[in-house]
């Protein structure tokens, strides 16, 4: 496995990736509510949500964030990631049951750190639905190993 991972030095600034699509189902939302314990009516009460601006239940924002993290692993070869450092994220629109989302990602910045064996890679990420509307977007910072 390890030799297939890409090191900091191999990742090029401006690289772009696009993931396959992933249809978000009612099951995803039910399982995520059970797992996370977040039973907000937004995600769990179909009748209440009929009267909301969304008209139906929507996926947890954090479910969309988690799914795109998985989509990233299907969009490109794995980085030699040492640590997930952080993210800056915006939820732009709802993900509804049956929507198919995909991830577009681009290497936005590469920074060296005090430690010679690693560097910080900032990836810009856009989550789109089947109508090409941006539903989530943001930047993630990953600490990636340098070529030994």
């Amino acid at each position, binding site marked *: 496995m390890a030799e297939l991972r890409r090191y900091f030095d191999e990742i090029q600034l401006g690289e772009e990736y696009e993931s396959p699509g992933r249809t978000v189902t009612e099951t995803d939302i039910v399982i995520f509510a059970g*797992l996370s*314990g977040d039973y907000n009516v937004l995600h769990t009460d179909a009748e209440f949500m009929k009267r909301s601006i969304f008209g139906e239940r929507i996926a947890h924002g*954090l479910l969309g*964030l*988690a*799914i795109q*993290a998985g989509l990233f692993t299907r969009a490109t070869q794995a980085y030699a990631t040492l640590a*997930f450092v*952080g993210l800056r994220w915006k939820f732009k629109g709802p993900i509804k049951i049956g929507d198919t989302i995909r991830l577009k990602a681009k290497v936005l910045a590469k920074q060296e750190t005090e430690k010679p064996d690693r560097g910080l890679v900032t990836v810009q990420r856009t989550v789109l639905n089947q109508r090409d509307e941006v539903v989530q977007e943001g930047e993630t910072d990953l600490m990636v190993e340098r070529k030994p």
Partner: protein
Amino acid sequence: MTAVARSYFEDVPLEHVEETPALTLTEAHVSIYQGITRELGDDAALVPDLLPLCFTTGLGWRVPKPPLAVLAFMGLDWQVVRRLRVGDTIHSRSRIATKRPMRDGGVVIEEREVIDQRGEVVQRGRFTYLVAKRSKENQA
């Protein structure tokens, strides 16, 4: 139509610190999470970094209070300070840092931390929500 007890923008207590009960992170949590996300790691004993973040909202639900009338989850800034392992026990501490009224609701910024069994902050960040106003909701 049943009335749902909810906490509105006007009710949000500024600066109030809330500590949740705790949750031990298990292989089952990691396995279910990976089933949904396919965010596979290279070490089964490590907890995917976004999973503790996902738990913080649900941990907040275990503090008895009417749930916040969230209209939309707008944004999130998050930092991972230290990785967590299966068997670690986390809880969440949060504080409302900012309230800004708008026409159709109000923006609430909440600072949130994930704390492990040693009392160390392992993840931290800020959640931004659009929350319904009491009056607006009642007219709807």
